[in-house]
């Protein structure tokens, strides 16, 4: 109980940052919207979706999934900054549960990403994207997107706790791009060379993007392969697997701060 309460206090600290410095989250949102516009209109005309369908409808769920994955960067940066500034040490010298620091991060980042999903959905609706399914399926799509965010959150916590130099967060910032683009978030795997398409199809990001397309009733750009009929299950399985790996690793990294 005290662990949860302390986690909530630490979450509130981040929420108070939004009020004090609204520009930081707003720039984050503008970045996502900019990517959406660049791909939707600048490149979109040159991209066809295998199996048919309009590119904006294909793109928006992919953009949502991509922005969830890019969240790993802000999580890792925030954790590493607190460690470097001694704030983590101060928390550790206090009578709070050892999970509180991570839980506080989880609460703040999930709140941030929920807002991001909603803003991107609104932005999508403004540029002609449509939900062609029922509300329950659409809600399930949002939950799967947030599940991916939850999974990469733990990767970010692990990285932020394990590597305290600024180099680690820069490595994450660079690595998210190839991982993000080597997926079906922006283009269908079926337009790629065979070997590249196979890698992209097995990217956890592709599972979430494809599942969200399916649940929103948007074109999936898939005619065959593992994502054709199992996208939703993969979009549950991948994040659960990542979480199962990185929660214990994060706990270990936190304990190792004592060494």
């Amino acid at each position: 109980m005290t662990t949860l309460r302390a986690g909530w206090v630490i979450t509130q600290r981040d929420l108070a940052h939004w009020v004090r410095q609204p520009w930081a989250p707003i720039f984050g949102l503008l970045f996502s919207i900019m990517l959406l516009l660049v791909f939707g209109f600048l490149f979109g005309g040159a991209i066809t979706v295998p199996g048919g369908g309009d590119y904006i409808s294909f793109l928006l769920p992919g953009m949502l999934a991509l922005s969830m994955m890019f969240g790993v960067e802000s999580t890792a940066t925030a954790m590493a900054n607190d460690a470097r500034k001694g704030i983590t040490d101060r928390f550790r010298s206090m009578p709070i549960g050892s999970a509180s620091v991570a839980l506080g991060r989880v609460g703040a980042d999930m709140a941030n990403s929920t807002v991001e999903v909603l803003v991107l959905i609104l932005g999508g609706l403004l540029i002609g994207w449509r939900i062609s399914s029922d509300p329950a399926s659409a809600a399930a799509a949002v939950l799967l997107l947030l599940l991916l965010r939850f999974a990469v959150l733990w990767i970010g916590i692990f990285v932020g706790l394990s590597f305290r130099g600024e180099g680690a967060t820069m490595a994450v910032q660079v690595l998210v791009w190839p991982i993000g683009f080597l997926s079906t978030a922006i283009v269908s795997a079926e337009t790629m060379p065979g070997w590249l398409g196979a890698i992209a199809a097995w990217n956890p990001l592709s599972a979430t993007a494809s599942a969200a397309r399916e649940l929103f009733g948007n074109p999936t750009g898939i005619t065959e392969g593992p994502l054709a009929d199992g996208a939703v299950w993969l979009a549950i399985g991948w994040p659960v697997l990542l979480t199962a790996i990185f929660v214990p690793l994060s706990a270990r990294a936190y304990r190792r701060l004592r060494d």
Partner: protein
Amino acid sequence: MTDNALEADGLRKRYGDLQALDGFDLTVPPGVIHGLLGPNGAGKTTAVKALATLIRTDGGSARVAGFDVRTQAREVRRRIGLVGQNAAVDEILGGRQNLVMFGRLFGLSTAAARARADELLDTFGLTGAAERAVSTYSGGMRRRLDLAAGFILTPAVLFLDEPTTGLDPRARNEVWESVREIAARGTTVLLTTQYLDEADQLAARISVMNHGRVVADGTPDELKRQVGGDRVTVTVPRSEPLEAVAQRLAAALGEAAVTDADTHRVTFEVGAGVVALADIVRALDQLGIAPEDLVLRRPTLDEVFLTLTDKEVAR
């Protein structure tokens, strides 16, 4: 059980090739400011981190406020405040917001945390800046907020790791005032510093640290005496022969004279300064010399520090 605020017994901690703590012993009774003095890399911060339950040592044991740092860390954490080397406060939030947050983390209700924050802002002279973002604070203000955050529950023991590093003299004085204020309310303070005058100003007792262990321990005066006796310096008028005067004074005192022709001064290291002073005045009187200046002083902590740490290197 024990009544000491801090007790460390043979703490050891190794980081790769570096033996950061090498049999660190410390005993601090409650309610005093204890200085932990040493050059960079002596192991001061590692010692503080070990006592504040932040790191696990490889060997030895320690009790803080009566609780074992290894097996009763949670109890220790309820009774300590930690103010680390860099001001560990949230820069985006305001001063009051910081204190309310830390208060709630210490288990206070929101209302109690707010009330305590207001008290502390007042005590540490930050009421006027309470709502401003900490990033707009001066170095001294930030430090004082940091101290206030470490003092929320009126801890039994407060760890201050180099609290005035990088501050200008005025801000340093303000922080010193705050530290005295904290100690006056019964909190035991362990203060690490590499500034000798800081330890001299604040600490009732000092432990000098080098290479991971305590190499000397005592009140500032005791430490100064360890290095040798007092110094008496006579400035002889230029009209008088320096060496001859020095020899006469040396004979009268029974101590060796050290002369400096440039400044025309003669210095004696003496056991008891005040007695020697009387002897010198009498001898000068007999010689019919009026000294230009006559100074009695203790060795400075700088001399203590250099002597002790040099000895350590020579070993």
